[in-house]
């Protein structure tokens, strides 16, 4: 949408041709429409009905509920509890992932070729590992009976998944481990694109590594950091596999539930598809809001993506 204004400003062509870009965009829009709009339309539609297994298989008629599913959801104290846990957990994951990813990206630019290659390969290995495999391996490492971590730390048969925070912490480690490579590689590529004279000048002025990062790299890398932050927010807010595998579907008495697992439980385990859809819609709107606010903030600062 925004492109059109840019186009008319920079292009000397008359208004009559404004349909042409849409023509070129049409194939992509059709694909996007089919893959995105239709499922979201269905999601929204289902969330307004009473739609459980009985309705799907024709045992009972489908009834229109209006906002009934939403009010049931919002009056459920567990939903709010899960929502708060999800926001805090996703926030912690994003911050940790970005910190680890950026620190290692800076490290990559400062080490020799061989250690750089090793670090790259290790990171790519973590990146390429499927989430289920990674979670299972991680769980085994921290297993109270057979895990090497407890043996090395001398913790006996301490169970990491029993306490709420310690279970979340364990999952956080796994999430950071499998998502920092994306941040690292992207930021590393960004740093390599920064003219070396700038960095040299800063170093000659006696700036510390932290100072260079803070005052030189961060401003120059802002577009890249924006993309990885939004990506991480979206990924970590939607985390499913790690929680599902590592805390056995939400932890003891559901203490480690996050929204996505909660939605899965409601929609598929309990066959309440309409309630699950309502949770999905709420998540969609929240992520959309986060992204929009973020983009708005950036625009105000004079950046264009």
């Amino acid at each position, binding site marked *: *949408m925004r492109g059109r204004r840019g186009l008319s400003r920079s292009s000397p062509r008359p208004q009559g041709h404004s349909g042409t870009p849409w023509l070129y965009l049409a194939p992509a829009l059709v694909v*996007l*429409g089919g893959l*995105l*709009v239709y499922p*979201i*339309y*269905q999601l*929204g*539609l*289902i969330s*307004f*009905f009473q*739609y459980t*297994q*009985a*309705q*799907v*298989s*024709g*045992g*009972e*008629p*489908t009834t*229109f509920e209006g906002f009934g599913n939403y009010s049931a959801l919002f009056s459920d104290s567990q939903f709010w509890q899960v929502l708060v846990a999800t926001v805090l957990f996703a926030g912690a994951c994003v911050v940790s992932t970005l910190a680890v990813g950026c620190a290692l990206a800076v490290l990559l630019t400062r080490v020799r070729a061989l250690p750089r290659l090793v670090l790259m390969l290790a990171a790519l290995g973590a990146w390429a590992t499927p989430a289920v495999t990674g979670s299972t391996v991680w769980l085994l490492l921290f297993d*109270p009976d057979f895990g090497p971590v407890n043996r090395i730390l001398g913790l006996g*048969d*301490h*169970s990491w*998944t*029993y306490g709420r925070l310690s279970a979340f912490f364990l999952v956080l480690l796994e999430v950071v481990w499998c998502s920092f490579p994306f941040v690292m590689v992207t930021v590393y590529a960004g740093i390599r694109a920064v003219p070396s004279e700038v960095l040299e000048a800063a170093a000659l002025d006696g700036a510390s590594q932290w100072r260079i990062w803070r005052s030189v790299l961060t401003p120059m890398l802002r577009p890249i950091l924006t993309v990885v932050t939004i990506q991480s927010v979206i990924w970590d807010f939607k985390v499913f596999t790690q929680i599902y595998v590592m805390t*056995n*579907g939400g932890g*003891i*008495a*559901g*203490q480690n539930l996050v929204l996505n697992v909660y939605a899965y*439980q*409601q929609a598929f*385990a*309990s*066959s*309440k598809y309409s309630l699950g859809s309502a949770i999905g819609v709420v998540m*969609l709107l929240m992520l*959309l809001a986060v*992204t*929009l606010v973020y983009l708005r903030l950036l625009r105000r600062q004079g950046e264009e993506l």
Partner: protein
Amino acid sequence: MKLAPRFAVLVAAAAVVAGCAPQTSDNSSSDKDDQSGTLRVWLFQEVGNDPKAKVVDSVVAAFEKAHKDTKVDVEYIPIDTRAQRVKAAFNDPKSAPDVMEYGNTDTAGYVHDGGLLDVTKEFGAWSEAKDTDPTAKQSVTVDGKMYGSPFYVGVRALYYRTDVFKDLGLQPPKTMAELAATARKIHKAKSDLYGLVVGGAYTYGAMPFVWANGGELATAKGGSGGTYTSAIDSAAAQKGIKAYTSLFTSDNCPAAKCAVMGGNDTITAFAAGKAGMAIGGDFSHTAVEAGKVKGKYAVVPLPGVASGSVAPAFAGGNNIGVLKSTSHRTLAVDLMEQLTSKKTQASMFDAMGFLPTFTDVRDAAAAKVPFEKPFVETLAAGTKFVPASPGWSEIDSSLVLPTMLQEIISGKKSVAAASGDAAKKMNSAFSSAG
């Protein structure tokens, strides 16, 4: 990207206003009753399925011989993904089988979903049906109508290590209080063993404690077919819950490890020689035999509160039913009866160790195999079944009872508070499924 969802919400709103509804499959019963053709059958794929398949093959061969131009197509479906397969079958009657095996706790849910055919008349007219165990009969009954024929039953009893008991000079416990005391003695003497291995997610291991103390999961309101009200927070039930959850202590089965365990985990621990006692089913026999403890264990009925009594066990097991969408009603019902007949169940017991649902056949079977004796005794002492309400599927799948147990075990809530919350959740499931 940004535009699309906003647009979608608009479209959705417009569609809702227009009165458009999501997809629903037409699962009304078929009027057709073809007397020949192909019957499709879904049975569960067991671990080591060959003996089962052999028995089924002989039933099918006899059936095809008796009915001209009829073919039976048997498919074994994996147990893990059965829920999805069955849902898919209900959603698309064209790809659905005519006859299928299902877990007996799913009966009410499947009936509510509109998937199973009412066979009350045929079952009543069937000469063999009169010997069916009442609990087994209850497990195919919803609102006084029958939706299938019981295939086999499964119950749990107390497995214990004969070598450990001999070492420590212990006797199999006679009461529930003795059970807890014995468990603690074992763990005290052998700290690498759980006394009685229990699981916070092991609902059917916990329920006998509730039932033995006179508690109930739920009580039917207004006679048969009425709605249910949860009774899990009654004083008697709370006593049972307390008895079970008090086993999760460092002197028996530490909460940090045992709170997450389910039924299979406890059996795995017992089979691996990590526990002095475990609550396992007759169906756990193979798993235990395959473990380290082979030849070093025995089974007794789980003791009740009074000395010499047996704690009521949950009557698990599977049924075979006919799908509403079948176009071969008569043939399908006949095949269902053949698959669950006394003869088939007797050979199925020999092949797979599945306990028959006919009392006479079961007694004959138990006389042959001493291992089955405690299980048959448990069945004879009276078993319990889950509420025959479609709400039960929801209660089961949304983990209401494991959550309650885990809340108590981990010290998050008191027995009264946790059972009160569970009762509220159960009641809302009962009423919404109505």
